[in-house]
């Protein structure tokens, strides 16, 4: 019998320059993709300048940014560019990487 996979909720930080527009587009797309894959996830949305302090205070599995991926973090949380989610180019590969990461 297969061992039941441990239930886990992914914690995701989504940031953009202003914490409003593109981070919302990314968040919505990712939330839909996670729902389809049956993955439960918690999202925190914010501004890219707040990413380092947010990363310190929350336990995130990964960060997605549409305002550059060099976020000056003190931690080694993986950071993905959110642009593939906006353009559709490289989106599947990115989802695969994310699924590997949290799987």
């Amino acid at each position, binding site marked *: 019998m297969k061992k039941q996979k441990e239930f886990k909720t992914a914690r995701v930080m989504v940031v*953009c*320059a*202003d914490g*409003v*527009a*593109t981070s*919302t*587009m990314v968040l*919505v*797309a990712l939330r839909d993709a996670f729902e389809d894959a049956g993955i439960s996830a918690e999202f925190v949305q914010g501004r*890219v300048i707040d990413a380092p302090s947010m990363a310190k205070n929350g336990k995130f599995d990964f960060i997605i940014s*549409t*305002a*550059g991926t060099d976020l000056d973090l003190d931690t080694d949380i993986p950071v993905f*560019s959110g*642009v593939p*989610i*906006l*353009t*559709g*180019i490289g989106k599947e590969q990115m989802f695969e990487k994310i699924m590997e990461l949290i799987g």
Partner: protein
Amino acid sequence: MKILDLVKKDLVVTKLEVESRGDLFKVLYEKLYSAGFVKESFLDGIENREAKFPTGLQLSKYGAAIPHTDPEHVIEPAVVVATLSQPVIFKSMENPTNDVKVNIVFMLAIKEPHMQLEMLKQMSRILQNDSLLEQMLQANEGDEIIEIIKTA
């Protein structure tokens, strides 16, 4: 709120001819400002934000840009759609050292993103659909653009 609640016919510009990104921003800002959607500070907000965090997106066939800025410069949400007769160079959101030749622009005046969720989703669908983009780029009138957006 859907994209067509925010894109009004007089907020669509087809085959716009501009020399530079700065001129493009002025023309599109003027549309929003004269219709009362944004404050005077919106234009500077757009310029500053674009310089720090560019919004050019290289799509598979075309280039798009989605200039926008802080909600504090916005009075009422709206979206301006512009197709350009000649591409204008933007920096890439993905990698700001790269240029993107932009053919289509969505200038977003966003206030409360969760109210504009459906609009943002529809815009993603448009950006990821080459044939819709192609139809939009060929359109001569704002009405045609609106009809194309309806199918997204």
